[in-house]
């Protein structure tokens, strides 16, 4: 009886934990292809399409988010969006989204680009890395659970800590695919 109880508790714990901490270095082959964009149409040549992840697997994975953060800097997203505060591009730490706040929207923004300056990264970034960046970008506005998003940055150069910015409630957002160019600030 007691053993039964213990076993079921252990099982439960294992189930609840922890994709959050896994570190999958080997991504499925489909995810290591350069990102080629969102499939807007259901029509595909040559049979059924590979289903794209609707929920972003990296959003519940601390390592994925931190990789996204690193890539965000490596790929110079910082150049326009700074560390979320915005600059040439719109800020990312608030919850105002021009092109939608869902992972698929952010993914589309990165891969397709957007008018008024956001370049398309189609073919330049592997699929899984795009999703990692998506996860990180969404973490900036507090849309991910606290235990996967990173803390402050550990860098040589002074920056504001992201996690100290107050959490806002989502003030969503234009419907997806409504490209109204509207930059704040």
């Amino acid at each position, binding site marked *: 009886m007691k053993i039964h109880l213990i076993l079921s508790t252990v099982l439960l714990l294992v189930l609840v934990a922890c994709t959050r901490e896994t*570190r999958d270095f080997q*991504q499925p*082959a489909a995810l*290591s*292809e*350069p990102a080629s964009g969102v499939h807007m149409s259901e029509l595909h040549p040559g049979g059924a399409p590979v289903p794209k992840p609707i929920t972003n697997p990296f959003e519940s994975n601390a390592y994925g988010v931190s990789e996204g953060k690193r890539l965000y800097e490596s*790929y110079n997203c910082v150049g326009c969006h700074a560390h979320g505060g915005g600059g040439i591009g719109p800020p990312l730490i608030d919850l105002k989204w021009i092109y939608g706040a869902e992972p698929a929207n952010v993914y589309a923004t990165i891969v397709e680009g957007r008018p008024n300056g956001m370049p398309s990264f189609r073919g330049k970034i592997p699929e*899984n890395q795009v999703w990692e960046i998506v996860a990180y970008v969404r973490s900036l506005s507090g849309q991910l659970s606290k235990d996967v998003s990173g803390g402050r940055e550990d860098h040589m150069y002074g920056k504001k800590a992201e996690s100290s910015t107050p959490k806002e409630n989502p003030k969503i957002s234009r419907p997806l695919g409504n490209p109204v160019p509207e930059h704040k600030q």
Partner: protein
Amino acid sequence: MKGRFISACGVSVFLAGCSGLQSSQSVVNPEGLQAARIDHLFWLMFWVCTIAFVITIAALSRAVLRKRETPVENFRPVDRAEATKTRVVAVAIAITVLSLFGLLVSSILTGKAIASLHPQNPLTIEVVGHQWWWEIRYPNSDASKTVITANEIHVPVGTPVVMNSTSRDVIHSFWAPNIHGKRDLIPGYQTALWFQADKEGTYRGQCAEFCGHQHAHMAFFLVAETPEKFNAWLQQQRTSAKDPQDAAAQKGQQFFLSHTCVMCHTVRGTIAGSNVGPDLTHLASRQTIAAGTLPNNPGNLGGWIINSQSIKPGNRMPPNQMNSDDLQSLLTYLETLK
């Protein structure tokens, strides 16, 4: 007796282990000025310590095995013997203190000797630690003449080198044991280390401070060569990459520039100019890829590009899916980056 026997065995195993093979990453095969001084100090200490060990174990064995002098139930020892023992212990302590003082002096002298090399015209290099590779720079007041390479350091023999180092991310430690001891690269700190290689050769070095997943595969090679060879190498490294001539290589270059590679790598002379990964301008001139992990040949390079994660799990290079034609032409192009 047993103790002495075991320690004798230990010493001989040790000596056999330390000599034997000439190794390109070894403390006891010094090929540099500093490493040689440290090597002398090591052997001095080794013999002093061995003698101390043997004497102590011999005394212990005798104490344990010698026959009893006082009856078993006499819990309180005989006073006269105690006085003798006190004298002997006092002398032993005095000898210990003196030997330690001797070792202290020799250690400080060695420390002074390896730090006091401040010549007029040293070669300056910069080493920047990254997870998990080494960025090597040969700075020049004319920025266009600055050489940037990765994981392979060329130095002229007999010339003092000053190495300025720092880290871009976590703490690493630069260590080429045949040349000098290690130096930590700490973010937020700039440190300078002097060394000099005395003999031509290729010496392996490795990161010695735990730095994450691929700490084990963060090696570099230090190539000590004659000043002439070194200057030729430096001259050659200063040039930009030439545009390829043959069709396959041109196709490869096209592929390189239009795909994910440019997000991280630089090839001087092209639009690829990102500083995230190692500079590839003279990739083909290097002996190894992936921070000393694999010999640099088209097979290894191809495998690395397709799926570096199976070779060095957790490293920063993403897997790249491409068809074999593209891979072939890409490799052909990379082979032209001499």
